[in-house]
């Protein structure tokens, strides 16, 4: 299928502040919609007159509306985060590989998220919970900088009620926080992972993903059962411009979701 390079028009139908700098926009097509989006894929969001950026989908796949969670870190993301309902944005995509969470049918599905990395994983989690009986355990291990910077914190009870085991840890907290404090890898042992029967999906800062994948391999998990969502400078989205190259991969096409078996040597290579 050919993906149009002309942005489709989408209207911001609602917005939800996740944290002080992160917003989830719900986007409804204002004309012809883009093709169905799968969990793990991304779109190029265009703030007209300012610029275009890659953003992973964070909503349940197969929905008419797109949910995209954006952290304000630069000009384009700040403009998108400030958009009120009714505003029009451009959307290209969907691009890239997906989590293929359904591939873990009959196994434990382990999601390990760090910071805003929970956004792309939320999509896989919602998909898995909508078909909960397909999996054995569905486990989400979530790391955040602080309780105030935990995205989707208001949904965690719903995820638990839908059959997910959710553990949250933060890097720093005061005595009002009654959850875990520490790095997310420390939750792996506490979660009681069953290495041969687990498929793991990891998303977060690259250092966090490397350390998490290494910790999972140390438990006996096969690298082939671990998938990471990698990020580079995605621009064209169709593997033409080369900005997102990581060794032999063009991540807008061959990623963002990549098996750790493939990613491990690339992540260990300097200057890639």
């Amino acid at each position, binding site marked *: 299928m050919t993906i149009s390079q002309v942005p489709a028009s989408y209207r911001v139908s609602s917005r939800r502040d996740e944290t002080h*700098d992160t917003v989830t926009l719900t986007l409804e097509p204002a004309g012809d919609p883009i093709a169905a989006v799968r969990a793990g894929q991304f779109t190029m969001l265009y703030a007209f007159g300012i*610029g275009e*950026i890659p953003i992973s989908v964070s909503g349940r796949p197969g929905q008419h509306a797109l949910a995209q969670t954006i*952290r304000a*870190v*630069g*000009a*384009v*993301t700040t403009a998108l985060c400030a958009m009120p309902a009714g505003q029009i944005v451009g959307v290209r995509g969907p691009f890239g590989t997906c989590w293929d969470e359904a591939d873990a049918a009959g196994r434990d599905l382990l999601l390990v998220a*760090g*910071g*805003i990395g929970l956004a792309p994983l939320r999509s896989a989690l919602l998909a898995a919970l909508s078909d909960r009986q397909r999996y054995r355990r569905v486990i989400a291990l979530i*790391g*955040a*900088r602080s309780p105030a*910077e935990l995205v989707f914190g208001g949904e965690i009870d719903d995820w638990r009620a839908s059959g997910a085991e959710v553990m949250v*840890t933060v*890097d*720093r*907290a*005061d*005595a*009002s*926080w*009654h*959850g*875990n*404090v*520490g*790095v997310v*890898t*420390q939750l792996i*042992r*506490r979660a009681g992972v069953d290495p041969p029967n687990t498929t793991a999906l990891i998303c*977060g*800062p690259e*250092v*966090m993903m490397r*350390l998490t994948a290494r910790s999972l391999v140390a438990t006996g998990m096969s690298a082939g059962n671990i998938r990471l969502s990698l990020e580079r400078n995605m621009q064209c989205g169709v593997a033409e411009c080369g900005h997102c190259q990581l060794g032999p991969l063009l991540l807008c096409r061959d990623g963002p979701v990549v098996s750790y078996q493939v990613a491990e040597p690339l992540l260990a290579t300097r200057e890639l």
Partner: protein
Amino acid sequence: MRGVSTRELGQHAFARGLTAGQLEALAALAVSVELPAGCRLFEEGGRAARLWLLRSGRIALDLRVPGRERIIVETLGPGDELGLSWLTPVAQWQFGAIAQLPVSAFEFSSTALVELCEADHELGYQLTRRLVVTAIARLQAARIRILDLYAAPAPAAGGAL
């Protein structure tokens, strides 16, 4: 508070790989304790003289800061060890510890542990090795947290994004 069987102790991650004789010697020193939520085990500055192997629940290691609420430095859970400071010459707790959730644990006197290790160097080596692994893991975790990985990227790194 009650005694601990070798079977119970052998189920804890810390005891994995110990021989039956070593387990027996260690179990003879252990007592099983149940701590309610809110129970403070120790305060910063106190004499460090206990090791706990946590079986369930959650412990918060915390620090008092003048003018602020206590800061939680780290939490520990099932399978973790609590109380390493007695290994240092000053044997003084560097943080406080409070049960956030009801805790079940095996408790050891550090004096008894040291005496056992002095009498049985092979067991001493095994215990020291485990505690060093724990200390390294906590050091590495602390270093990772210093990186502040989840902070917003600096504008220069974020570019136009």
